[in-house]
């Protein structure tokens, strides 16, 4: 069925793939020690100088890949949250996943700070557990007997939990050592800190498990985004699928946030822009949303690195700078 959405999808998909490649190339070559664009391919082929090889393989490449994966995961989680709660304002940050993951990471960090390198594989797990605990609580609190989970209530309770957990973070920080506090506060503003290969290896299994399952569920997501009565009529087992998909979203966002720091708004913006471009069928807008999420985070980080010569501005701040007005725009338009 070649309709307008199919055609648009092909065009946008190619366009966003190109944009993504451009973002990756910029992300690799720009920054404090620059690596000229023309030198990237030779360096990959092993013809670069020692410095070029170091910058590419040890500094930029892992960072850019982690950013891309992080942005992709946040966009995926945002898509799931928005479709399952049938609310365009849902986002892993808004709904309390970031806060939950933050508490997980903080507790883990405070216990293991001296040997962090050794435990790096457990970091996504710690964040996941924190986020899962939070989302489970949110789910239970928005559960109404006989009616299941009320999606709108889920968002409201989520916002409440996010605030409460931020308070808990402050409490944890006030009891911690100075160096630890610095790390945690950097994490909170979304300072990409896990920029070495081990962090990438720690992240990868989560993606290998979650992403195929997510694509397997696109059809269910389509139906879940409809009114409840329609979804039941079409034969979706609401509670089972909702729990499974929320679990997926928490695993993706939680593990990503563990490495990238608390980044909001990507999960909000990416699916929303994609939906506006090619309609609400997940087969089409999910791949685009993932590309947008990855591109956005890579670009935000690159901007953060080149804006000031003396320091790096956290990518989370740059994203928030674009995302917050977008969020307000959405709020006004949704009235």
């Amino acid at each position, binding site marked *: *069925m070649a*309709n*307008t*959405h199919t055609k648009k999808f092909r065009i946008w998909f190619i366009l966003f793939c190109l944009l993504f490649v451009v973002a990756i190339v910029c992300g690799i070559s720009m920054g404090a020690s620059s690596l000229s664009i023309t030198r990237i391919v030779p360096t990959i082929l092993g013809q670069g100088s020692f410095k070029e090889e170091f910058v590419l393989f040890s500094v930029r490449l892992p960072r850019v890949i982690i950013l891309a994966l992080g942005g992709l995961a946040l966009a995926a989680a945002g898509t799931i949250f928005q479709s399952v709660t049938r609310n365009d304002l849902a986002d892993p940050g808004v709904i309390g996943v970031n806060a939950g993951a933050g508490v997980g990471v903080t507790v883990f960090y405070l216990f293991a700070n001296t040997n962090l390198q050794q435990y790096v594989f457990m970091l996504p797990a710690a964040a996941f557990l924190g986020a899962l605990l939070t989302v489970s609580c949110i789910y239970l609190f928005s559960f109404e007997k*006989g009616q299941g989970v009320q999606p709108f209530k889920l968002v409201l309770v989520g916002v409440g939990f996010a605030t409460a957990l931020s308070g808990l973070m402050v409490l944890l920080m006030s009891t911690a050592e100075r160096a630890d506090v610095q790390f945690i506060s950097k994490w909170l503003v979304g300072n990409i800190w896990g920029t070495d290969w081990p962090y990438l290896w720690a992240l990868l299994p989560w993606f290998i498990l979650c992403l195929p399952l997510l*694509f*397997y569920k*696109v*059809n269910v997501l*389509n*139906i879940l*985004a*409809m*009114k*409840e*009565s*329609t979804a*039941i*009529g*079409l*034969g*979706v*087992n609401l509670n089972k699928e909702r729990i499974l998909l929320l679990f997926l979203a928490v695993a993706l966002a939680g593990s990503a946030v563990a490495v990238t720091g608390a980044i909001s708004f990507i999960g909000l913006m990416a699916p929303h822009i994609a*939906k506006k471009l090619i*309609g*609400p*069928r997940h*087969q089409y807008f999910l791949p685009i949303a993932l590309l947008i999420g990855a591109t956005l985070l890579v670009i935000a980080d690159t901007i953060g690195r080149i804006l000031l010569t003396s320091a790096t501005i956290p990518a989370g701040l740059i994203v928030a700078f674009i995302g917050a007005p977008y969020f307000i725009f959405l709020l006004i338009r949704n009235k």
Partner: protein
Amino acid sequence: MRLQVEDIRVGYDEQTIVHDISMAIPDGKITTIIGANGCGKSTLLKAITRIINHESGQVVLDGKNIRKMKTKELATQLAILPQSPESAQGLLVEELVSYGRFPYQKGFGNLSAKDKEMIDWALEVTGTKDFRHKAVDALSGGQRQRVWIAMALAQETDIIFLDEPTTYLDMAHQLEVLELLHMLNVQEGRTIVMVLHDLNQAARFSDYILALSHGHLIRAGEPEEVITTEVLKEVFNIDAVIGKDPRTNKPMCLTYDLIKGE
């Protein structure tokens, strides 16, 4: 009869909306539920189609309690068109209709040849083929309703439930929808169960009518048995004059007054 409702009781919180209703839905017929606002007719429809839970009793399809059946399997047996369907959020007509194939799909949701055939047929029969590439929300109310019916048809079920399918439509479009359902019933042998507000439409298009009042089943039978002065008095608290439709020969409420006092 394939679909039986046995002593079903439905309530919200402490309040009972449907009181122990038992009935059988005749196969291959059009059945209409009528009743005053708040009498529980929509609630009954939702309970039969598992959209809301019932407190006691059971709904039996082919000898099996539908609560024990897998919801996806049940979706291949009965389709539901909810009251005043939602916004399609930018979906195209053929995309929305393709959602009707969900119960037959696995995984990524590529459409099989059979899926495509059913979608084409549903578009054709509902007269929505010409705007299959348009956005659902850009259509008129009557067109949109036919698209939603097409989605239910794509589900390829023998039984179709519709909750007030004519609400918000003008007279011509109301008739268009009812004629479509009539045609599906006669030509395709589909069993149709719906809630209607208009008594004369119910009388004209139904083989079987269920009259509800305050959550109780007052009368069930052919239009001639249900659309009577006596039943309408009990169900709607009106004093109605019943005649015959000069064209269809079906019973018809010619005029009515409210019954004052007791």
